[in-house]
């Protein structure tokens, strides 16, 4: 446990940056409608101030010693929980990234969300999200991370369901939260294991910092046992499988947030939210939290966990890329692209390319956010058209777009830049970060030579080739060719405008960050760029450092680049010039891809439906069997009581009544002799006397 020091200036700045969005949430949430402009300026200005504070933090912390701030929170039993902040390179980088992108998206939203009935609620929720996200990256203990982790999920739920009166949005928000909850539960179980083993959840105590070992690095696997001298100073041991399980549990939490297979299905549905939300939360920040978490707890993963992580990541990267190729919804293409790119990062973590993963996280945040904002710009204009001309069409469908290049030049150019970055074209950010991951994968194959690592590298490379194809398919479909909507509705004169400055300026700012220069002065190799210098993987007992060198270092980027360019050209041929067709729409492979590998259907069939069925069954069981048993008891008791009552009435009481009635009968019999006639009495008396005489005579 780190002693609480006095609060240094960067920490104070971080705390202010953290609390400002919360304040904005409260102000807008409580008084939003009464404020001028419904309070959007509160959110925007607070976020911008938070960005300034974060920038200050960043300048103070980057490449300096980490700083901590802790307050005791809860003591019970052996557990002493504190709440606190931890500022190090990673968290400083994350807060500046998050606040910067959020500021831009908020400005963009002022135009994009204009006229919405729940305009203030949007900004309130966005502020709440920012607060949770900042809390998540600043938190210094796993429990605190978990708390903000769930809050991030909650604000994402609120924002996906922003248009709650649309059924699909309501369903998508529920799905997102529940799928995330599955991951959360796994994460929580991981926390339980760590807490039991180490007696603390403090990040620094657990994972150390810099070259100092934490408890996790000190723990040893001896035979079947995973031993450690825990925070209370006593030896604690668990079975060694718990080490793998703990790592995988936490990874499962990350997989849910970062939409990795098999918990990826919520992210495409989450596109039901406003595009600005998709851009910020479901592309740039929240989904990256999973990668952030995996990076934070990196020393925990043993070799089994690491290989599972890299396999899952590579599979996801390939699968999502293959799905993105055939999607017709502009946002879904981008959603699957996000999943695919997150897969790259996760694989990188699994391969031990820790800094490459985080580097890609940063570059991806910019260009993917930009892609969404550009898509949003297109969607926004088409949405306007729809209202203006009272038409009915899906304004997110790629098939109705086309030829927007000249009508929306700025949007076109920024999207083109972002697409190049995503595709990994040289001189763009993506080239630097993605190729680092690919190089690590191939390097690992070369050094280890195992089939699994080869498959991982192959899957990643395939995904890397699919990527330029699907993104340029999108670009060509939207901006090249003819405006297909006009063809469908020839009667209307459909004029598309460029979006205004509120939307343009944030996009242009983001576009700048797709250029290599911000990350490394060397356009083809980032290893000596400032960002990688600052991102050093924490110590790990299980990670084998992969040094990239030799053939791989030059061949992989070159080959990938060539293939990417080839992919772009074939996309142009197919979608801009319409001269090439790969697969017909009813081809099985095409269907497989378009239906997203049937994951939703399968999950519905094997998880959702059985669960609902099981609940119906338990409901029936409870009503009929358990309660039925109780009622049976009741009824049996009542029946038995009725039987006893019968006995009581007929037998016991019957005997009493019989005695009574017999006496009555006897009485009535004798009453008849009581006539009151003297002579009759006399005669009877004499008769009796005679009888006695006779009897006496006979007896003697």
């Amino acid at each position, binding site marked *: 446990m780190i002693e609480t020091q006095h609060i240094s200036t960067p920490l104070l700045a971080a705390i202010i940056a953290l609390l400002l969005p919360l304040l904005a949430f409260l102000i807008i949430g409580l008084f939003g409608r009464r404020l001028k402009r419904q309070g959007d300026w509160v959110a925007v200005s607070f976020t911008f101030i938070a960005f300034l504070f974060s920038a200050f933090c960043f300048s103070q912390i980057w490449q300096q010693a980490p700083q901590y701030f802790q307050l005791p929170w809860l003591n019970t039993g052996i557990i002493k929980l504190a709440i606190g902040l931890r500022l190090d390179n990673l968290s400083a980088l994350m807060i500046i990234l998050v606040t910067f992108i959020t500021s831009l998206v908020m400005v963009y939203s002022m135009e994009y969300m204009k006229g919405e009935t729940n305009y203030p609620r949007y900004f309130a929720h966005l502020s709440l999200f920012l607060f949770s996200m900042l809390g998540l990256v600043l938190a210094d203990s796993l429990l605190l991370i978990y708390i903000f982790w769930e809050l991030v999920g909650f604000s994402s739920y609120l924002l996906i369901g922003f248009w709650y009166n649309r059924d699909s949005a309501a369903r998508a928000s529920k799905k997102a939260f529940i799928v995330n909850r599955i991951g959360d539960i796994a994460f929580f179980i991981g926390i339980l294991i760590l807490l039991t083993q180490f007696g603390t959840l403090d990040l620094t105590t657990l994972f150390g910092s810099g070259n100092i070992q934490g408890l996790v690095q000190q723990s040893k696997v001896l035979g079947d046992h995973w031993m450690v001298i825990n925070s209370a100073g006593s030896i604690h041991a668990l079975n060694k499988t718990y080490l793998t399980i703990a790592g995988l549990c936490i990874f499962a939490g990350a997989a849910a947030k970062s939409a990795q297979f098999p918990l990826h299905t919520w992210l495409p549905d989450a596109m039901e939210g406003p595009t600005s939300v998709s851009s910020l939360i479901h592309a740039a920040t929240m989904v990256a939290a999973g990668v952030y978490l995996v990076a934070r707890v990196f020393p925990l993963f043993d070799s089994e966990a690491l290989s599972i992580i890299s396999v899952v990541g590579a599979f996801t990267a390939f699968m999502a890329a293959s799905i993105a190729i055939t999607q017709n919804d502009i946002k879904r293409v981008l959603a699957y692209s996000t999943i695919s790119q997150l897969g790259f990062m996760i694989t990188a973590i699994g391969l031990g390319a820790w800094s490459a993963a985080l580097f890609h996280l940063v570059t991806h945040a910019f260009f993917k956010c930009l892609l969404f904002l550009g898509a949003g710009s297109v969607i926004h204009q088409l949405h306007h058209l729809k209202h203006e001309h009272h038409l009915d069409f899906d304004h997110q469908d790629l098939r109705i777009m086309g030829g927007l290049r000249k009508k929306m030049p700025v949007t076109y150019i920024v999207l083109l830049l972002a697409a190049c970055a995503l595709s990994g074209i040289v001189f763009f950010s993506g080239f630097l970060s993605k190729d680092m991951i690919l190089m690590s994968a191939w390097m690992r194959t070369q050094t280890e030579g195992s089939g699994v690592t080869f498959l991982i590298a192959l899957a990643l490379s395939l995904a890397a080739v699919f990527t330029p194809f699907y993104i340029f398919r999108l670009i060509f479909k939207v901006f090249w060719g003819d405006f297909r909507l006009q063809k469908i509705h020839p009667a209307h004169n459909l004029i598309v405008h460029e979006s205004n400055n509120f939307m343009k300026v944030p996009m242009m700012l983001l576009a700048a960050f797709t250029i290599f220069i911000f990350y490394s002065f060397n356009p083809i190799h980032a290893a000596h760029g400032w960002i990688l210098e600052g991102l050093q993987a924490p110590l790990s007992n299980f990670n084998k450092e992969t040094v990239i060198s030799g053939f791989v270092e030059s061949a992989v980027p070159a080959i990938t680049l060539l293939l990417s360019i080839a992919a772009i050209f074939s996309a142009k041929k197919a979608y801009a010039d319409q001269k090439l067709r790969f697969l017909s729409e009813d081809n099985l492979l095409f269907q497989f891809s378009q239906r997203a590998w049937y994951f939703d259907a399968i999950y519905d069939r094997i998880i959702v439906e059985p669960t609902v069925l099981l609940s119906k069954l338990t409901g029936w069981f409870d009503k009929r069997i358990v309660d039925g048993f109780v009622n049976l008891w009741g009824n049996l008791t009542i029946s038995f009581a009725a039987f006893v009552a019968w006995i009581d009435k007929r037998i016991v009481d019957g005997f009493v009544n019989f005695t009574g009635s017999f006496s009555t009968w006897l009485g009535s019999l004798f009453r008849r002799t009581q*006539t*009151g006639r*003297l*002579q009759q009495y*006399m005669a009877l008396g*004499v008769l009796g006397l005679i009888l006695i005489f006779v009897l006496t005579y006979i007896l003697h």
Partner: protein
Amino acid sequence: MLNGIPLEHFLYISTALFCCGLFAVLTRRNAVMVLIGIELMINAAILNFVSFGAFDKIKNGGQMFAIFGIVLAAAGVAVALAIILNVYKHFKTIDPSAIDEMKG
């Protein structure tokens, strides 16, 4: 043996007397006649006392009891007649079978 007459004969007469009395008691519809019947029965009993009393010459218990019985019978007749008078006054009849309630 009583003056040569055997005891049985006294008893026969007594029995006859008793039966006459009993018959009168059971059959007469006149209370006075019933009373007479009772007197006959008492007299039959007294005759028996007297007859057996002949065998007890020292104490003369039988004779004594007979006299006692006669006195009692006389008193009884007096009371009975008084009752009969009262019954008549009340019920306007002295038929014992018509008088079947004791309530005054």
